[in-house]
């Protein structure tokens, strides 16, 4: 569905690359996560793939179209949700969607139905300029679904949303995945990526460091950890210890033998911890 080969992009048209030699393929029906800290080059990559930024160097095909000389009909197959919501503030939510759907040549979904899914039906006829940030974000999100895209680009779909709404969004993405939609999902939220993605790419300073499935990554990089809470001379202590590290294993043995353990459970490494391990950097 997507093939990116040797992609470079520089906003200043010089050697200062926002994206450097990116290579990846996304197969049909796959949910592909693009993970990295702020300024890593995630939105830039998405911008080139969606034709918003000019392709400077490399080869990019999306949904069978070569982005370099893509016909505009390509966009009938594509949906794009933006990290910064961009809807007409002077129009109502419904007017925004009604106008937008008319720009497509393919059959589109019922705007009212989409508004209902993300809980915006009660403000459908309200001016968008009166919306909160999260409401605008949801509107931008459902707008990208209007044309039933085969290829769906989601830039930070859950950022800034309250947990309840965020889980609604995640459920929608899962539902679309079931229907066979291919998703390119950009985020710096590892939990979202872990939950939704078949494969993830770690990108930092414009370079992709690694691409694999969350499960493989955990098997490969994740140490098995155990979290223990125990009493030591009346004080409650809490430690995280590794099953692999010899010193930790002995220490754990001692704690168990003294019999003062109050709580103990094993813990998988999170995608976030793996990211830090692989790239040497945090995600925020």
């Amino acid at each position, binding site marked *: 569905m997507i093939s990116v080969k040797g992609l470079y992009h520089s906003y200043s048209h010089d050697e200062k690359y926002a994206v450097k030699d990116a290579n990846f393929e996304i197969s049909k029906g796959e949910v592909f996560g693009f993970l990295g800290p702020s300024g890593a080059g995630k939105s830039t990559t998405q911008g080139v793939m*969606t*034709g*918003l*930024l*000019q392709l400077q160097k490399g080869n990019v095909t999306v949904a069978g179209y070569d982005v370099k000389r893509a016909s*505009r*009909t*390509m*966009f*009938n197959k*594509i949906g*794009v949700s*933006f990290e*910064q*919501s*961009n*809807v*007409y*503030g*002077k*129009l109502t939510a419904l*007017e925004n969607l009604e*106008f*937008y759907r*008319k*720009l*497509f*040549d393919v059959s589109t979904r019922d705007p009212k139905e989409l508004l209902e899914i993300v809980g915006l039906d009660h403000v459908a006829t309200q001016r968008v300029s009166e919306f909160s940030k999260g409401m605008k974000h949801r509107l*931008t999100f459902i*707008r990208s679904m209007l044309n039933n895209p085969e290829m769906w680009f989601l830039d930070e779909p859950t950022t800034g949303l309250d947990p309840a709404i965020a889980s609604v969004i995640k459920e929608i993405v899962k539902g679309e995945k079931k229907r066979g939609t291919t998703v390119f999902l950009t985020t710096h939220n590892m939990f979202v990526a872990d939950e939704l993605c078949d494969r993830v790419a770690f990108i930092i300073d414009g370079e992709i460091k690694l691409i694999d499935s969350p499960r493989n990554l955990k098997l490969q990089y994740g140490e098995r950890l155990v979290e223990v809470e125990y009493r030591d001379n009346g004080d409650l202590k809490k430690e995280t210890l590794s099953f692999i590290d010899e010193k930790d294993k002995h220490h754990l043995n001692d704690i168990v033998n003294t019999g003062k353990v109050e709580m103990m459970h094993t813990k998988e490494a999170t995608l976030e911890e793996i990211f830090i391990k692989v790239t040497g950097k945090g995600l925020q």
Partner: protein
Amino acid sequence: MKLLYSFLKDMQLSLKSFYIYIELGFALVFVAVMLFAVPENFEPRVTVYAYLDLEGPNQVMAEESLTQEGYEVILLLSREEVEAELADNRSSVGLAVALEDGTIVYDYILQGYEDEKFKNIIKTSIESGFAKEMPGYENVTTVTTLEGKGEKLSDRLNILPVFLALNAAFMGLFIIASYIFLDKDEGTIKAFAVTPAKVWQYLLGKMGVMLVSGLMSGLVATAFIAGLKAHYLHLILLLIACNAFGSALGLFIASFFDTMTKAMGWLYMSIIILAFAAVSYYMPAFSPLVIRMLPSYPMLFAFRETLYEVSDLRYIYANVLGFSLAGVVLFLLSNWRFKKTLTV
């Protein structure tokens, strides 16, 4: 179809923003000022350019009698000079007085738009002045009418073309650019860019909005100020061509910038430069080539032609054609540029 939807949406947006009301409000204020505060003609006093070919005491006497009549008299040295001045100052009349065989010969040189009543008033008042001072002379009177347009617009009507060019044509230049930057700011331009709709549909939809507001304000102002005197068919076609030219120029300038602040200087400068044509429009004596080369220069005169009783259709339609063509070329250039820069 997408063009139509895009236009309708932009129309809806523009009705919810203030620009269109500024434009229409400006037209109404202009009408009000013109009708209630500005006299139909600014200079009720007529300037008389005179060439007196008399001798000694007669010369002095004639000069005195002329100035006493309350005209602004400017004495010149030849009949040719009189004609030259008349051509530049359309609200003046000329007079050549000579003494031939003891007879005073009056030669009136008129613009051609004066009506009979006006001619007679001038004649009798000047001649009676002479008769008082120089009794006993017979006189012979001839009237010469200058070549050229036999029609002069009232001063009030004469301002209308400036308004039409400014409001209907060049205001669009500014407003269309700000609409584009508004969309860039809001980011909605990016949302549009990831649909199968084309850039030209986006741009043309905006031009449609400019056309509607430009036509409305132009026609409202003309209807109130010129009433039935204007030739509306020619005027509408000319307004369309000039408006399209102005908007396309605005698009073209906007295509070089990513924010309104950066584009502002250029937009402002181009409007000021175009406005210079109005100077030559009012003072035909000052028409250097640089001003005559401005597109606004023929535009002003073309708008004026639509207000004359007998219009120079060839001139009007040369302008309609010229501005339409220039508009199309600028539009194509903007489209080509925006394809690359719209979302940057």
